[in-house]
């Protein structure tokens, strides 16, 4: 089973008010040395066992559906086996 992660971020020239809002709230948490926060989407796609052309199919999905090229960029990463980083509840 292949898992693909597509990260979609707003282009840098597009204002990200959500990121700005988080940035503005950081001092209240005592964090003062952050210069920028940008918020995008992380999409985890799981393909069936025997799916083929996984990367290519993902590119189509990302390009046509997950990202809007007018405002967003994306990156694709294929993870052959399912594996998650350390999780914090």
């Amino acid at each position, binding site marked *: 089973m292949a898992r693909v992660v597509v990260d979609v971020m707003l282009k840098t020239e597009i204002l990200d008010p959500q990121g700005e809002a988080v940035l503005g709230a950081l001092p209240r948490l005592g964090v003062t040395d952050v210069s920028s926060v940008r918020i995008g989407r992380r999409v985890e796609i799981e393909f069936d066992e025997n799916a083929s052309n996984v990367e290519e199919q993902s590119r189509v999905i990302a390009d046509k559906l997950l990202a809007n090229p*007018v405002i967003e960029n994306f990156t694709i990463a294929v993870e052959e086996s399912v594996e998650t980083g350390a999780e914090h509840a």
Partner: protein
Amino acid sequence: MSARIGIVTFPGSLDDRDAARAVYLGGAEPVRLWHDDAQISGVDGVWLPGGFSYGDYLRCGAIARFSQVMDTVKAAADAGMPVIGVCNGFQVLCESHLLPGALVRNAHLRYRNAPTRLRVETERTAWTRAFEPGTEVVFPAKHGEGRYVADEAVLDELEDSGRVVFRYADNPNGSMRDIAGVCSEAGNVVGLMPHPEHAVEALTGPSTDGLGIVASVLSHLSEGAVR
């Protein structure tokens, strides 16, 4: 026979009935269209109503773009049929690349509902020709993702070619250059965020200015294109 305006219902469309009422009150005949329709024969214009098509998950309008009906709407628009998209309909038109730019999260990050003053910047579209340019109209604006954005070059091009159709008097969402609505090169496709269909009766709306939208398309259809 009065002009027939097709109103598309996507799963999650909310203002389809209201658009039909506006079309009817404006003197045209509303025709219900379904998102899965491969044919839209028999209509003279198309209205993509507001709502949350397919839940508006991912990005507003992103999934509706792939519906059957949008293929046909696209072809009809290319052939000159008048098409208007309001709110979610505007988002669908942008996602479908029938109109330039994109609609993103309001700068203040909230959904906001308020009567909004707009300036009609041009009468040279299928849906505004009944207005005097510079007229101020009041439509309710209600959306969480209505901030219009595009490249500076695209914005300049829109301004230069007179394709900014509506501009906010008091920008409610951070839209670039106060843009509330734009049109296609030929002027037959118009998209705007505020809701003309909720400004058609004194009893329920902040104005009756929305009737001018229907009057415009009727006049366009009877007299032919202006561009």
